């Protein structure tokens, strides 16, 4: 296992007590059976090379946000390792972790909660630059101008407060703040989901441009398939706290094999769908079954093995992996 990957995540596990699940887009159920330890991440592993963009697709409760928080060590996983640039972050104590934090930055979903309402944009950005000594004191003003230009905001924006900005503009500020830290990895956790369609396109373009201009390594998380495939050549699909499929660059989503991914594809609203198609998956209501494959209750291809064994993520072809007994069985036959 070569160690030149920028990020290596090994067998991450994380569970939550009480309300079942970490940050979510929608709180779906107060079902008492979910009140006990609910696994948010189960044996998640992945590698990220420098300059790569990884897309993560999943619905609420899939663990995608928990993954973002564990990878950036905003929360500590229960077990597993996060190795960043050769350093095992999970083994570091709180104080030792601090100087490394700036190298992995997250842009969050809600532009209205992500900025301190009492600080001007200049204050926020200057603080990042100062705390991490990224720029000499007399260079701070220039750097702030650069950062604002980078995200497409006028220089005059620096002396305003967040309340003066719209949602899309605030997201740009969040991106500027993240970039101010000169991170190696930028994680966008549903960063465009709360924006209007026309603004979404603007911010997506911004991220894509930054990817190209700065060579940023990115993890782009969204529930929206179309958005993810636009920006990320490599896509991980998450369900029930696991990565159930990994599509390498060059393999389009239409060639996905895992039943859940196929269900997502069929269900995602498309402009050219003349009428809603029939779905093989119907009841997504119940809590996930314990043991075995988490998708088995909803899967049209489930058989006995699915109930007893949690399918491992295995290669189908090249870098294309899927965690499904049905798919992998079909391959080995």
């Amino acid at each position, binding site marked *: 296992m070569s160690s030149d990957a920028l990020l290596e995540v090994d067998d991450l596990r994380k569970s939550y007590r009480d309300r079942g699940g970490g940050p979510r887009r929608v709180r779906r159920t107060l079902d008492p059976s979910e009140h006990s330890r609910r696994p948010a991440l189960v044996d998640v592993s992945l590698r990220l090379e420098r300059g790569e963009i990884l897309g993560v697709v999943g619905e609420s409760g899939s663990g995608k946000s928990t993954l973002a928080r564990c990878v950036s060590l905003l929360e500590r996983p229960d077990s597993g390792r996060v190795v960043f640039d050769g350093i095992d972050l999970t083994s570091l104590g709180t104080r030792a972790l601090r100087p490394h934090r700036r190298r992995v*930055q*997250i842009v969050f979903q809600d532009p209205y909660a992500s900025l301190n309402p009492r600080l001007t944009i200049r204050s926020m950005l200057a603080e990042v630059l100062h705390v991490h000594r990224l720029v000499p004191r007399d260079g701070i*003003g220039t750097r702030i101008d650069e950062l604002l230009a980078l995200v497409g905001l006028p220089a005059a924006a620096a002396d305003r407060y967040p309340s003066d900005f719209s949602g899309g503009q605030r997201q740009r500020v969040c991106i500027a703040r993240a970039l101010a830290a000169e991170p190696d990895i930028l994680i966008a956790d549903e960063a465009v989901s709360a924006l209007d369609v026309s603004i979404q396109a603007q911010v997506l373009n911004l991220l894509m441009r930054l990817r190209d201009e700065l060579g940023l390594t990115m993890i782009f998380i969204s529930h929206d398939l179309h958005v993810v495939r636009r920006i990320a050549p490599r896509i991980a699909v998450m369900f029930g706290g696991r990565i159930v499929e990994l599509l390498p660059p060059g393999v389009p989503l239409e060639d996905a094999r895992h039943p859940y991914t196929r269900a997502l594809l069929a269900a995602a609203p498309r402009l050219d769908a003349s009428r809603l198609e029939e779905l093989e998956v119907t009841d997504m209501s119940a809590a996930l079954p314990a043991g075995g494959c988490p998708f088995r209750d909803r899967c049209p291809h489930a058989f006995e093995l699915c109930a007893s064994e949690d399918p491992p993520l295995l290669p189908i072809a090249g870098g294309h992996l899927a965690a499904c007994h049905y798919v992998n069985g079909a391959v080995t036959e």
Partner: protein
Amino acid sequence: MTDYAIRFPTSGARAAWRFASSPGWSRRIGVAGVVLLVLVALFAPLIAPYGPNDQDLVTGLHGPTWSHLFGTNQLGEDIFSRVVYASRIDLQIGIVGVTVPFVIGTTIGLFAGYYGGWLDTIIGRVIDIFTAFPFLVLVIAIVAMLGPGLRNLYIAIAVVSWVAYARIVRGETLSAKRREYVVAAHGLGYSGLRIMFRHVLPNVIAPAIVFSMSDFVLDIVAGASLGFFGLGVQPPQAEWGVMIADGRNFITTAPWLVVFPGLAIVVVGFFFSLLGDGLADYIRRVDR
């Protein structure tokens, strides 16, 4: 350029002016009244025609006249002058009685709310214990133990009062620390101290400030009550409570001994109350 420094936001002065000049008659009256009180206290020697202890045994116990606006007490001391000079002590009681607990309580509440865990549990229990007792009872008990005098009064108030601020700030901090900009600050590798004082504190302090207004009045009343019992400021020093205590034997014969200092307390309370209400409204409307 100290845009990134950890310090209390000094937009305070500008904000205070914006508040003071915002519309609303009761608010403006409150501000004006408080300013007036402060001026009276500051310029007492210029306003009072006599010293607080200038005795004129000949004109003792006379009602209000032109030369003694509020009358004189049994020692011939001019009530008006005494009321004016007393404002210094009473306002001082209010200021010290608020500032010290405010700083202590806010800091403790901030740490407890932000770090949680055993620290929060312990502090939470301490707060609960203190809250079980009425404020005045505790203050009197402590002063009774320590002995009378202004200094002990301050100690007593500080020991008892911080709890209210801690409770307010702790509650606000618990919810504030979940907000995404605090999480982002954490993700940017900022130290706990920086996050607490620069990102959390300014956003949680408003309710504490509003509370401090009513706390101010409470402290003055406490000082006056203790003065009344002889546990606070000692005669012959002029303090409203002491004046009322001294005059209580003369209520029927020379009511002005009691009425004017009592009115002073009421007036102070009134202005601060208006100010506090106005502040609460203003913060609620303006807060981003």
